[in-house]
């Protein structure tokens, strides 16, 4: 359980960090809080030649909130989100989801950028990013690019990040005050990885019908996913017990979760249906 041998660098600018990553032809990794990477190193699931620590990079640790939405620097920690009281209004879905992330000590180190780049299919932040159509700002040798969450997550622990690229910021679009939402997940112990989770939001049109429904799920595929067929069931209809039941049934039918040591696929599918039903009821209350 000891990490393999590697070199360590702590550059002071993003450009310098990108240069270091580029110099190793895919054999360098970024570290910041290290709450996902350190276990990977301990298990020797990762064995980079060089770790590039973002510790000295300034300006990546801020939470900016304005009329365009919420921008989280890559080094924003879970405890920073927890302590930012503005988010209860500016992005309640994010604030609620982050309450489920890991345990106390990990929340003091773990970062938004780290979770997104690690791309665990059952992690909360990737689920929120996927559901909310987040935009990722990515800096590499070729310059800066912006990637939608949908294109960012490419598989289990896989993203579209190139070896010389660093995720610097995630942008969550503006959140209308009247928006309806819910985040629910199920884990045997709070703070552990969820067996399944659901993030959802929608707006109500002038006649009280659901519009702009966004439903995401974690822990049920090789990456966080949107349940577009469930969204289609919801859009255009007033919230009712019948609609909740139809949407839950659709969710159960459309997800195809893998079976692993923690739960059979069918159980996870049932969980998603149950969580979605509870979430929709909660959102309408």
């Amino acid at each position, binding site marked *: 359980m000891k990490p393999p041998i*590697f070199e360590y660098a702590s550059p002071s600018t993003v450009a310098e960090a990108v240069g270091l990553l580029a110099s190793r032809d895919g054999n360098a990794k970024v570290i910041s809080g290290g709450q996902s990477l350190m276990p990977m190193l301990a298990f020797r699931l990762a064995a980079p030649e060089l770790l590039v620590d973002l510790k000295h990079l300034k300006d990546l640790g801020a939470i900016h909130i304005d009329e365009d939405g919420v921008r989280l620097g890559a080094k924003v920690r879970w405890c920073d989100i927890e302590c930012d009281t503005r988010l209860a209004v500016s992005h309640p879905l994010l604030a609620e989801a982050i309450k489920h992330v890991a345990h106390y000590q990990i929340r003091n180190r773990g970062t938004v950028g780290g979770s997104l780049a690690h791309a665990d299919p059952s992690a909360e932040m990737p689920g929120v990013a996927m559901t909310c159509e987040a935009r990722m700002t990515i800096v590499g040798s070729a310059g800066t690019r912006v990637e939608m969450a949908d294109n960012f997550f490419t598989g289990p622990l896989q993203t579209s990040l190139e070896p010389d690229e660093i995720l610097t910021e995630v942008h969550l679009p503006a959140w209308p005050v009247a928006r309806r939402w819910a985040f629910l997940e199920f884990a045997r112990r709070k703070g552990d990885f969820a067996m399944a989770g659901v993030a959802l939001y929608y707006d109500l049109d002038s006649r009280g019908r659901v519009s702009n429904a966004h439903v995401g799920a974690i822990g049920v595929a090789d990456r966080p996913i949107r349940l577009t067929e469930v969204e289609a069931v919801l859009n255009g209809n007033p919230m009712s017990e019948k609609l909740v039941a139809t949407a839950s049934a659709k969710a159960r039918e459309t997800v195809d979760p893998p079976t692993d040591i923690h739960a059979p696929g069918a159980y996870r599918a049932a969980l998603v249906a149950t969580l979605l039903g509870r979430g929709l009821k909660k959102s309408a209350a």
Partner: protein
Amino acid sequence: MQIEFNLNGQLVGADVEPRTTLADCIRNDFGQTGTHLACEHGVCGACTVLLNGEAVRSCLMLAAQVQGEQVVTVEGLSGDELTPLQAAFRKHHALQCGFCTPGFITTAHALLSHEPNADEERIREVLSGNLCRCSGYIPIVEAVLESRSFYQDAGSK
């Protein structure tokens, strides 16, 4: 590589491999074996130390990452006398084999330093990041609950 940091109030230096975890550095380079290592992958909480006053898992950090920072281990919390928190652990029999105890003490100390009015639910939530394989959680929670008054008094002075 050479690193320097503040360990329990003293500036210390060591020559470590980049892959050395903070936990191994504290134990092996400085002989401060109060910080216990069990799972070594961030699940059990036994290795919890304070980094600039915040509870962190020292197995999930590199020694290189604490360059210039302040680290406090369980040894740094008390002098010759037990702290009120430690005394409460003894009073409530909040330890059996004792292996997990340093992690619980450092975690609870960080919590009560920041949130001296934490209620039982909050205490349980925070301590859920620490495992006691003797499963003696109830006395641990009782000890932490009782210790709150000392932190409340310290905060009001």
